[in-house]
Protein backbone atom coordinates (compact mmCIF):
# COMPACT_ATOMS: atom_id res chain seq x y z
CA UNK A 1 0.00 0.00 0.00
CA UNK A 2 1.26 3.44 -0.82
CA UNK A 3 -0.62 5.41 1.78
CA UNK A 4 1.71 8.19 2.84
CA UNK A 5 2.08 10.04 6.12
CA UNK A 6 3.34 13.55 6.61
CA UNK A 7 6.17 14.46 8.94
CA UNK A 8 5.28 17.05 11.57
CA UNK A 9 7.63 19.93 11.15
CA UNK A 10 5.88 23.17 10.56
CA UNK A 11 2.45 24.37 11.58
CA UNK A 12 1.40 25.19 8.05
CA UNK A 13 2.44 21.72 6.89
CA UNK A 14 -0.85 20.09 5.90
CA UNK A 15 -2.00 16.89 7.56
CA UNK A 16 -4.06 14.28 5.82
CA UNK A 17 -6.48 11.64 6.96
CA UNK A 18 -8.20 8.62 5.51
CA UNK A 19 -11.33 9.01 3.40
CA UNK A 20 -14.40 7.89 5.25
CA UNK A 21 -18.04 7.97 4.26
CA UNK A 22 -20.05 10.84 5.72
CA UNK A 23 -23.76 11.18 5.12
CA UNK A 24 -24.63 13.83 2.60
CA UNK A 25 -26.77 14.63 -0.41
CA UNK A 26 -24.04 14.03 -3.01
CA UNK A 27 -20.44 12.85 -2.92
CA UNK A 28 -17.89 14.64 -5.05
CA UNK A 29 -14.55 12.84 -5.26
CA UNK A 30 -11.37 14.11 -6.92
CA UNK A 31 -8.33 11.83 -7.10
CA UNK A 32 -5.07 11.44 -8.95
CA UNK A 33 -2.61 8.55 -9.41
CA UNK A 34 -2.59 6.15 -6.46
CA UNK A 35 -5.37 8.22 -4.89
CA UNK A 36 -7.64 5.94 -6.92
CA UNK A 37 -6.93 3.22 -4.33
CA UNK A 38 -8.34 5.45 -1.59
CA UNK A 39 -11.49 5.90 -3.69
CA UNK A 40 -11.79 2.13 -4.05
CA UNK A 41 -11.56 1.73 -0.25
CA UNK A 42 -14.16 4.43 0.22
CA UNK A 43 -16.58 2.59 -2.06
CA UNK A 44 -15.80 -0.72 -0.36
CA UNK A 45 -16.64 0.91 2.96
CA UNK A 46 -19.95 2.39 1.78
CA UNK A 47 -21.19 0.90 -1.51
CA UNK A 48 -24.37 3.02 -1.23
CA UNK A 49 -22.25 6.03 -2.09
CA UNK A 50 -22.26 5.06 -5.79
CA UNK A 51 -25.69 6.36 -6.76
CA UNK A 52 -24.87 9.89 -5.66
CA UNK A 53 -21.13 9.88 -6.38
CA UNK A 54 -19.29 12.00 -8.94
CA UNK A 55 -15.66 11.04 -9.52
CA UNK A 56 -13.02 13.07 -11.33
CA UNK A 57 -9.82 11.08 -11.82
CA UNK A 58 -6.46 12.24 -13.09
CA UNK A 59 -3.85 9.54 -13.89
CA UNK A 60 -0.60 10.12 -11.99
CA UNK A 61 2.39 12.01 -13.40
CA UNK A 62 4.34 8.79 -12.61
CA UNK A 63 2.15 6.81 -14.99
CA UNK A 64 -0.23 5.24 -12.47
CA UNK A 65 -3.63 4.98 -14.12
CA UNK A 66 -6.45 3.31 -12.20
CA UNK A 67 -9.25 4.68 -14.34
CA UNK A 68 -10.36 1.26 -15.62
CA UNK A 69 -10.86 0.01 -12.07
CA UNK A 70 -12.58 3.20 -10.95
CA UNK A 71 -14.98 3.10 -13.85
CA UNK A 72 -16.32 -0.23 -12.64
CA UNK A 73 -17.27 1.23 -9.24
CA UNK A 74 -20.59 2.34 -10.66
CA UNK A 75 -20.45 6.01 -9.70
CA UNK A 76 -23.31 8.12 -11.06
CA UNK A 77 -20.72 10.22 -12.89
CA UNK A 78 -17.13 9.27 -13.75
CA UNK A 79 -14.78 11.57 -15.62
CA UNK A 80 -11.13 11.12 -16.48
CA UNK A 81 -8.96 14.19 -17.05
CA UNK A 82 -5.35 14.55 -18.16
CA UNK A 83 -4.44 17.15 -15.50
CA UNK A 84 -5.90 19.19 -12.69
CA UNK A 85 -5.78 22.23 -14.92
CA UNK A 86 -7.93 20.44 -17.49
CA UNK A 87 -10.40 19.29 -14.83
CA UNK A 88 -10.55 22.53 -12.92
CA UNK A 89 -13.41 24.13 -14.81
CA UNK A 90 -15.58 21.08 -14.25
CA UNK A 91 -14.65 20.99 -10.56
CA UNK A 92 -15.48 24.66 -10.13
CA UNK A 93 -18.78 24.22 -11.97
CA UNK A 94 -19.81 21.25 -9.82
CA UNK A 95 -18.99 23.20 -6.66
CA UNK A 96 -20.70 26.33 -7.95
CA UNK A 97 -23.95 24.51 -8.71
CA UNK A 98 -24.02 22.36 -5.56
CA UNK A 99 -25.96 22.72 -2.35
CA UNK A 100 -24.90 22.35 1.25
CA UNK A 101 -24.88 18.70 2.15
CA UNK A 102 -22.44 17.86 -0.63
CA UNK A 103 -19.50 15.83 0.68
CA UNK A 104 -16.13 16.56 -0.83
CA UNK A 105 -13.19 14.14 -0.96
CA UNK A 106 -9.67 14.47 -2.40
CA UNK A 107 -7.12 11.68 -2.60
CA UNK A 108 -3.69 11.36 -4.12
CA UNK A 109 -0.74 13.69 -4.31
CA UNK A 110 -0.34 16.70 -2.13
CA UNK A 111 -0.49 18.96 -5.18
CA UNK A 112 -3.91 17.61 -6.12
CA UNK A 113 -5.28 17.76 -2.57
CA UNK A 114 -4.05 21.32 -2.15
CA UNK A 115 -5.70 22.44 -5.36
CA UNK A 116 -9.02 20.86 -4.43
CA UNK A 117 -8.74 22.54 -1.02
CA UNK A 118 -8.08 25.89 -2.66
CA UNK A 119 -11.06 25.56 -5.01
CA UNK A 120 -13.31 24.38 -2.14
CA UNK A 121 -12.40 27.42 -0.08
CA UNK A 122 -12.99 29.64 -3.10
CA UNK A 123 -16.44 28.09 -3.32
CA UNK A 124 -17.06 29.27 0.25
CA UNK A 125 -16.52 25.96 2.04
CA UNK A 126 -14.65 25.93 5.35
CA UNK A 127 -11.35 24.03 5.63
CA UNK A 128 -12.92 21.14 7.50
CA UNK A 129 -15.36 20.43 4.66
CA UNK A 130 -12.80 18.51 2.61
CA UNK A 131 -11.77 14.98 3.49
CA UNK A 132 -8.29 14.15 2.30
CA UNK A 133 -6.06 11.14 1.91
CA UNK A 134 -2.51 11.36 0.64
CA UNK A 135 -1.49 8.47 -1.56
CA UNK A 136 1.31 7.81 -3.93
CA UNK A 137 4.01 10.21 -4.89
CA UNK A 138 5.17 12.72 -2.31
CA UNK A 139 6.04 15.13 -5.10
CA UNK A 140 5.43 18.72 -4.13
CA UNK A 141 3.97 21.72 -5.85
CA UNK A 142 6.40 24.52 -5.06
CA UNK A 143 6.23 28.24 -5.58
CA UNK A 144 9.50 30.09 -6.16
CA UNK A 145 9.42 33.04 -3.76
CA UNK A 146 11.60 35.02 -6.17
CA UNK A 147 9.80 34.79 -9.51
CA UNK A 148 6.47 33.46 -8.10
CA UNK A 149 6.43 30.70 -10.73
CA UNK A 150 5.03 27.34 -9.65
CA UNK A 151 6.87 24.11 -10.43
CA UNK A 152 4.76 20.97 -10.28
CA UNK A 153 5.90 17.50 -9.17
CA UNK A 154 9.11 18.51 -7.44
CA UNK A 155 10.82 15.40 -6.09
CA UNK A 156 14.28 16.64 -5.19
CA UNK A 157 15.67 19.21 -2.81
CA UNK A 158 17.17 21.49 -3.92
CA UNK A 159 15.72 21.77 -7.41
CA UNK A 160 15.93 24.21 -10.27
CA UNK A 161 12.97 26.58 -10.64
CA UNK A 162 11.30 25.78 -13.94
CA UNK A 163 10.58 29.46 -14.48
CA UNK A 164 13.62 31.52 -13.44
CA UNK A 165 16.27 28.83 -13.11
CA UNK A 166 17.34 29.63 -9.54
CA UNK A 167 18.44 26.77 -7.28
CA UNK A 168 15.63 26.43 -4.74
CA UNK A 169 15.56 24.88 -1.29
CA UNK A 170 12.10 23.36 -0.57
CA UNK A 171 10.65 24.51 2.73
CA UNK A 172 7.80 22.93 4.70
CA UNK A 173 6.15 26.33 4.74
CA UNK A 174 2.83 25.78 2.93
CA UNK A 175 0.30 28.22 1.49
CA UNK A 176 -3.31 27.09 1.35
CA UNK A 177 -4.20 29.96 -0.94
CA UNK A 178 -1.59 28.93 -3.52
CA UNK A 179 -1.77 25.24 -2.66
CA UNK A 180 2.03 25.20 -2.80
CA UNK A 181 5.16 24.90 -0.70
CA UNK A 182 7.71 27.66 -0.63
CA UNK A 183 10.99 27.41 -2.53
CA UNK A 184 13.84 29.74 -1.55
CA UNK A 185 17.13 30.37 -3.35
CA UNK A 186 19.79 28.22 -1.70
CA UNK A 187 22.92 29.84 -3.13
CA UNK A 188 22.07 33.54 -2.90
CA UNK A 189 25.14 34.37 -0.79
CA UNK A 190 27.63 32.11 -2.55
CA UNK A 191 26.31 31.66 -6.08
CA UNK A 192 27.08 28.25 -7.40
CA UNK A 193 27.53 26.62 -3.99
CA UNK A 194 24.64 24.24 -4.31
CA UNK A 195 24.49 21.06 -2.26
CA UNK A 196 23.73 17.94 -4.31
CA UNK A 197 20.03 17.38 -5.00
CA UNK A 198 18.50 14.65 -2.84
CA UNK A 199 15.33 12.83 -3.78
CA UNK A 200 13.23 13.80 -0.75
CA UNK A 201 9.70 13.67 -2.16
CA UNK A 202 9.46 10.44 -4.05
Amino acid at each position, binding site marked *: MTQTQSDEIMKSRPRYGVLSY*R*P*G*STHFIVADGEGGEAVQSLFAQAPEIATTAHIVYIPGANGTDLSAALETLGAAVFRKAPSYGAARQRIQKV*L*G*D*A*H*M*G*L*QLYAAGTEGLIGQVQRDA*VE*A*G*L*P*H*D*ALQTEQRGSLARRVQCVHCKGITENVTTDPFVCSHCGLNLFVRDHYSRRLAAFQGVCIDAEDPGEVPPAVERFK
Partner: protein
Amino acid sequence: MSGASKIPAIVTEVVEVNSLIKRFRFVREDGGPMPGFSGGSHTVVEMEDDGRRRLNAYSLMSDPADRSGYEISVRRDDGGRGGSMFMHARVKPGMRMQISQPVNLFGLDLRAKKHLMIAGGIGITPFIAQMAQLDGLGGRFELHYAARDRELGAYMNELSARYGERVHRYYDTEGQAIDLPTLLKGQPLGTHLYVCGPKGMINWVLSTAQKQGWPKGALHSEEFLAPPVGEAFQVDLALSGVTVNVGATQSMLEAIEAAGIDAPYLCRGGACGQCECKVREAEGELLHYDHWLSDEQKEARSHIMPCVSRFKGSRLVIEL
Protein backbone atom coordinates in the same frame (compact mmCIF):
# COMPACT_ATOMS: atom_id res chain seq x y z
CA MET B 1 -5.80 40.42 31.89
CA SER B 2 -9.22 40.68 33.46
CA GLY B 3 -11.79 41.72 30.91
CA ALA B 4 -11.47 43.93 27.87
CA SER B 5 -10.52 47.51 28.79
CA LYS B 6 -13.33 49.79 29.86
CA ILE B 7 -15.04 52.71 28.20
CA PRO B 8 -16.62 55.32 30.47
CA ALA B 9 -20.04 55.91 28.90
CA ILE B 10 -23.29 57.80 29.36
CA VAL B 11 -26.72 56.33 28.72
CA THR B 12 -28.47 58.62 26.26
CA GLU B 13 -31.62 56.67 25.46
CA VAL B 14 -33.76 54.05 27.10
CA VAL B 15 -36.58 52.80 24.88
CA GLU B 16 -39.28 50.36 25.84
CA VAL B 17 -39.45 48.06 22.83
CA ASN B 18 -42.18 45.83 24.25
CA SER B 19 -43.36 44.56 27.61
CA LEU B 20 -40.16 42.55 28.15
CA ILE B 21 -37.46 44.29 26.14
CA LYS B 22 -35.75 47.65 26.57
CA ARG B 23 -33.15 49.19 24.33
CA PHE B 24 -30.25 51.28 25.67
CA ARG B 25 -27.91 53.61 23.85
CA PHE B 26 -24.46 54.49 25.17
CA VAL B 27 -22.12 57.25 24.05
CA ARG B 28 -18.63 57.96 25.31
CA GLU B 29 -18.37 60.22 28.28
CA ASP B 30 -15.56 62.16 26.57
CA GLY B 31 -17.70 62.66 23.45
CA GLY B 32 -15.26 60.75 21.21
CA PRO B 33 -16.13 58.00 18.75
CA MET B 34 -16.67 54.48 20.01
CA PRO B 35 -14.16 51.80 18.94
CA GLY B 36 -15.11 50.08 15.70
CA PHE B 37 -16.66 46.65 15.95
CA SER B 38 -17.88 43.85 13.71
CA GLY B 39 -21.38 42.38 13.76
CA GLY B 40 -21.79 39.71 16.43
CA SER B 41 -19.70 41.56 19.03
CA HIS B 42 -20.81 42.05 22.59
CA THR B 43 -19.94 44.49 25.34
CA VAL B 44 -19.83 43.77 29.05
CA VAL B 45 -21.92 46.30 30.99
CA GLU B 46 -20.87 47.02 34.55
CA MET B 47 -23.68 47.66 37.03
CA GLU B 48 -23.28 48.98 40.55
CA ASP B 49 -26.24 47.37 42.25
CA ASP B 50 -26.17 48.62 45.86
CA GLY B 51 -22.65 47.48 46.55
CA ARG B 52 -22.90 44.40 44.37
CA ARG B 53 -21.02 44.67 41.10
CA ARG B 54 -22.74 42.96 38.20
CA LEU B 55 -21.12 42.40 34.84
CA ASN B 56 -23.37 41.21 32.03
CA ALA B 57 -22.51 40.70 28.37
CA TYR B 58 -24.94 42.03 25.75
CA SER B 59 -24.69 41.86 21.96
CA LEU B 60 -24.21 45.15 20.17
CA MET B 61 -27.14 45.68 17.84
CA SER B 62 -26.35 49.07 16.36
CA ASP B 63 -24.89 49.52 12.89
CA PRO B 64 -21.16 48.78 13.03
CA ALA B 65 -20.66 51.76 10.72
CA ASP B 66 -22.09 54.08 13.38
CA ARG B 67 -19.25 55.04 15.71
CA SER B 68 -21.28 57.66 17.59
CA GLY B 69 -22.68 55.16 20.07
CA TYR B 70 -23.53 51.57 20.92
CA GLU B 71 -26.97 50.06 21.34
CA ILE B 72 -28.03 46.92 23.19
CA SER B 73 -31.38 45.33 23.93
CA VAL B 74 -32.08 43.67 27.25
CA ARG B 75 -34.83 41.17 27.89
CA ARG B 76 -36.09 41.27 31.46
CA ASP B 77 -35.64 37.91 33.11
CA ASP B 78 -37.77 37.94 36.25
CA GLY B 79 -36.37 34.62 37.43
CA GLY B 80 -32.76 35.55 36.67
CA ARG B 81 -29.99 36.72 38.93
CA GLY B 82 -30.90 40.36 38.72
CA GLY B 83 -28.74 41.97 36.02
CA SER B 84 -31.56 42.39 33.52
CA MET B 85 -33.89 43.61 36.29
CA PHE B 86 -31.31 46.23 37.21
CA MET B 87 -31.06 47.37 33.61
CA HIS B 88 -34.82 47.65 33.36
CA ALA B 89 -35.58 49.25 36.71
CA ARG B 90 -32.58 51.43 37.44
CA VAL B 91 -30.86 52.50 34.26
CA LYS B 92 -32.09 55.90 33.08
CA PRO B 93 -30.90 58.39 30.47
CA GLY B 94 -28.03 60.50 31.77
CA MET B 95 -26.59 57.71 33.92
CA ARG B 96 -22.86 57.08 33.77
CA MET B 97 -21.81 53.47 33.33
CA GLN B 98 -18.67 51.52 32.42
CA ILE B 99 -18.90 49.30 29.39
CA SER B 100 -16.14 47.13 27.95
CA GLN B 101 -14.47 47.36 24.58
CA PRO B 102 -16.33 45.14 22.13
CA VAL B 103 -15.33 41.49 21.86
CA ASN B 104 -16.54 39.26 19.05
CA LEU B 105 -17.08 35.54 19.61
CA PHE B 106 -19.79 35.29 16.96
CA GLY B 107 -18.27 36.95 13.93
CA LEU B 108 -19.33 36.51 10.34
CA ASP B 109 -17.10 34.40 8.14
CA LEU B 110 -16.80 36.79 5.24
CA ARG B 111 -15.49 34.06 2.94
CA ALA B 112 -19.02 32.62 2.88
CA LYS B 113 -21.03 32.87 -0.32
CA LYS B 114 -24.19 33.37 1.70
CA HIS B 115 -25.07 33.90 5.35
CA LEU B 116 -28.11 32.07 6.71
CA MET B 117 -29.20 33.45 10.08
CA ILE B 118 -31.61 31.82 12.48
CA ALA B 119 -32.77 33.81 15.50
CA GLY B 120 -35.01 32.95 18.41
CA GLY B 121 -36.44 35.73 20.55
CA ILE B 122 -33.88 38.17 21.94
CA GLY B 123 -31.23 36.19 20.03
CA ILE B 124 -32.04 38.59 17.20
CA THR B 125 -29.72 41.32 18.50
CA PRO B 126 -26.32 40.23 17.10
CA PHE B 127 -27.97 39.66 13.71
CA ILE B 128 -29.24 43.24 13.56
CA ALA B 129 -25.62 44.46 13.60
CA GLN B 130 -24.49 41.68 11.23
CA MET B 131 -27.19 42.46 8.68
CA ALA B 132 -26.29 46.14 8.72
CA GLN B 133 -22.65 45.14 8.16
CA LEU B 134 -23.48 42.75 5.31
CA ASP B 135 -25.86 45.21 3.72
CA GLY B 136 -23.04 47.75 3.63
CA LEU B 137 -20.67 45.20 2.09
CA GLY B 138 -23.22 43.91 -0.41
CA GLY B 139 -23.12 40.45 1.22
CA ARG B 140 -25.86 37.92 0.62
CA PHE B 141 -27.93 36.98 3.66
CA GLU B 142 -31.27 35.64 4.78
CA LEU B 143 -32.82 35.85 8.24
CA HIS B 144 -35.28 33.42 9.79
CA TYR B 145 -36.57 34.89 13.02
CA ALA B 146 -38.95 33.12 15.39
CA ALA B 147 -40.66 34.75 18.36
CA ARG B 148 -43.44 33.76 20.68
CA ASP B 149 -45.99 36.25 19.34
CA ARG B 150 -46.31 39.52 17.43
CA GLU B 151 -45.94 41.60 20.55
CA LEU B 152 -42.66 39.95 21.56
CA GLY B 153 -41.17 39.83 18.08
CA ALA B 154 -38.92 42.79 18.72
CA TYR B 155 -37.78 44.70 15.63
CA MET B 156 -39.56 42.35 13.22
CA ASN B 157 -41.38 45.13 11.39
CA GLU B 158 -38.33 47.38 11.16
CA LEU B 159 -36.22 44.52 9.82
CA SER B 160 -38.82 43.55 7.24
CA ALA B 161 -39.12 47.15 6.15
CA ARG B 162 -35.37 47.46 5.78
CA TYR B 163 -34.50 44.10 4.23
CA GLY B 164 -37.79 42.99 2.64
CA GLU B 165 -37.81 39.42 1.30
CA ARG B 166 -34.62 38.55 3.09
CA VAL B 167 -36.47 38.51 6.42
CA HIS B 168 -38.72 35.54 7.24
CA ARG B 169 -40.87 35.76 10.36
CA TYR B 170 -42.41 33.01 12.48
CA TYR B 171 -44.79 33.37 15.44
CA ASP B 172 -45.14 30.37 17.77
CA THR B 173 -48.64 31.36 18.89
CA GLU B 174 -49.81 31.35 15.29
CA GLY B 175 -48.47 27.87 14.78
CA GLN B 176 -45.67 28.95 12.47
CA ALA B 177 -42.38 27.10 12.63
CA ILE B 178 -39.24 27.10 10.55
CA ASP B 179 -39.20 24.14 8.14
CA LEU B 180 -35.57 23.56 8.93
CA PRO B 181 -34.79 20.39 6.94
CA THR B 182 -36.13 21.95 3.74
CA LEU B 183 -34.50 25.29 4.44
CA LEU B 184 -31.09 23.71 5.00
CA LYS B 185 -31.33 21.42 1.99
CA GLY B 186 -31.86 24.30 -0.39
CA GLN B 187 -28.80 26.32 0.58
CA PRO B 188 -26.13 26.91 -2.04
CA LEU B 189 -22.67 25.49 -1.42
CA GLY B 190 -20.59 27.95 0.57
CA THR B 191 -23.44 29.00 2.86
CA HIS B 192 -22.56 29.58 6.50
CA LEU B 193 -25.20 29.09 9.16
CA TYR B 194 -25.52 31.27 12.26
CA VAL B 195 -27.91 30.59 15.10
CA CYS B 196 -28.59 32.57 18.26
CA GLY B 197 -31.42 31.95 20.69
CA PRO B 198 -32.46 29.52 23.39
CA LYS B 199 -30.44 26.38 23.98
CA GLY B 200 -33.09 24.03 22.58
CA MET B 201 -33.22 25.93 19.33
CA ILE B 202 -29.44 26.01 18.95
CA ASN B 203 -29.18 22.26 19.52
CA TRP B 204 -31.98 21.56 17.05
CA VAL B 205 -30.45 23.73 14.33
CA LEU B 206 -26.89 22.44 14.76
CA SER B 207 -27.86 18.78 14.96
CA THR B 208 -30.15 19.02 11.92
CA ALA B 209 -27.39 20.67 9.91
CA GLN B 210 -24.83 18.07 10.95
CA LYS B 211 -27.19 15.27 10.04
CA GLN B 212 -27.53 16.81 6.60
CA GLY B 213 -23.77 16.81 6.18
CA TRP B 214 -22.93 20.45 6.86
CA PRO B 215 -19.28 20.82 7.86
CA LYS B 216 -18.68 22.08 11.41
CA GLY B 217 -16.69 25.02 10.10
CA ALA B 218 -19.82 26.42 8.44
CA LEU B 219 -21.83 26.36 11.67
CA HIS B 220 -21.75 29.24 14.12
CA SER B 221 -23.77 29.66 17.27
CA GLU B 222 -24.03 31.92 20.25
CA GLU B 223 -26.01 31.18 23.32
CA PHE B 224 -26.62 33.71 26.03
CA LEU B 225 -25.35 31.76 28.97
CA ALA B 226 -26.18 33.36 32.24
CA PRO B 227 -24.34 31.83 35.17
CA PRO B 228 -26.80 29.38 36.67
CA VAL B 229 -27.89 29.71 40.26
CA GLY B 230 -27.13 26.74 42.47
CA GLU B 231 -25.99 25.78 45.93
CA ALA B 232 -23.42 27.79 47.82
CA PHE B 233 -19.91 26.30 47.96
CA GLN B 234 -16.33 27.10 48.93
CA VAL B 235 -13.29 27.32 46.71
CA ASP B 236 -9.63 27.59 47.71
CA LEU B 237 -7.44 29.67 45.43
CA ALA B 238 -4.06 27.98 45.62
CA LEU B 239 -1.93 30.79 44.17
CA SER B 240 -3.60 33.65 46.03
CA GLY B 241 -3.87 31.65 49.25
CA VAL B 242 -7.48 32.70 49.78
CA THR B 243 -10.67 30.78 50.46
CA VAL B 244 -13.76 32.20 48.81
CA ASN B 245 -17.40 31.54 49.61
CA VAL B 246 -19.60 31.41 46.53
CA GLY B 247 -23.21 32.35 47.21
CA ALA B 248 -26.17 30.56 45.65
CA THR B 249 -26.94 33.35 43.16
CA GLN B 250 -23.34 34.36 42.66
CA SER B 251 -20.97 32.91 40.08
CA MET B 252 -17.57 31.62 41.19
CA LEU B 253 -15.96 34.41 39.17
CA GLU B 254 -18.08 37.06 40.88
CA ALA B 255 -17.23 35.68 44.31
CA ILE B 256 -13.52 35.65 43.45
CA GLU B 257 -13.73 39.26 42.26
CA ALA B 258 -15.67 40.26 45.37
CA ALA B 259 -12.78 38.85 47.42
CA GLY B 260 -10.53 41.40 45.71
CA ILE B 261 -8.80 39.02 43.31
CA ASP B 262 -8.31 40.09 39.73
CA ALA B 263 -9.26 36.97 37.78
CA PRO B 264 -9.14 36.77 33.98
CA TYR B 265 -12.38 36.89 32.00
CA LEU B 266 -13.79 38.16 28.74
CA CYS B 267 -17.30 36.92 27.96
CA ARG B 268 -18.51 35.80 31.40
CA GLY B 269 -20.70 33.31 29.57
CA GLY B 270 -18.61 30.16 29.22
CA ALA B 271 -17.73 30.76 25.58
CA CYS B 272 -14.40 32.54 25.19
CA GLY B 273 -12.06 30.39 27.28
CA GLN B 274 -10.37 33.32 28.97
CA CYS B 275 -11.26 32.36 32.55
CA GLU B 276 -10.08 28.72 32.26
CA CYS B 277 -8.59 27.54 35.52
CA LYS B 278 -6.70 24.38 36.45
CA VAL B 279 -8.25 22.26 39.14
CA ARG B 280 -5.76 21.02 41.76
CA GLU B 281 -8.08 19.11 44.00
CA ALA B 282 -11.75 18.34 43.85
CA GLU B 283 -13.53 16.21 46.40
CA GLY B 284 -16.97 16.32 44.93
CA GLU B 285 -18.65 17.08 41.65
CA LEU B 286 -17.56 19.72 39.18
CA LEU B 287 -20.72 21.19 37.63
CA HIS B 288 -19.61 22.31 34.17
CA TYR B 289 -21.93 24.68 32.32
CA ASP B 290 -19.53 26.13 29.75
CA HIS B 291 -19.19 25.62 25.99
CA TRP B 292 -15.44 25.81 26.15
CA LEU B 293 -13.86 22.74 27.76
CA SER B 294 -13.70 19.57 25.71
CA ASP B 295 -15.49 16.48 26.95
CA GLU B 296 -12.09 14.93 27.67
CA GLN B 297 -11.13 17.89 29.87
CA LYS B 298 -14.43 17.67 31.69
CA GLU B 299 -14.00 13.97 32.20
CA ALA B 300 -10.44 14.39 33.42
CA ARG B 301 -11.70 16.93 35.98
CA SER B 302 -8.61 18.95 35.16
CA HIS B 303 -10.12 22.36 34.42
CA ILE B 304 -13.06 24.57 35.30
CA MET B 305 -14.55 27.81 33.96
CA PRO B 306 -15.34 30.00 36.98
CA CYS B 307 -17.62 32.37 35.03
CA VAL B 308 -20.44 29.81 34.76
CA SER B 309 -19.47 26.53 36.39
CA ARG B 310 -20.09 25.47 39.94
CA PHE B 311 -19.08 22.82 42.45
CA LYS B 312 -20.82 20.48 44.80
CA GLY B 313 -18.73 18.73 47.41
CA SER B 314 -16.41 19.13 50.33
CA ARG B 315 -13.26 20.60 48.83
CA LEU B 316 -12.26 22.43 45.65
CA VAL B 317 -8.80 23.90 45.03
CA ILE B 318 -8.08 25.80 41.83
CA GLU B 319 -4.93 27.40 40.46
CA LEU B 320 -5.62 31.08 40.74
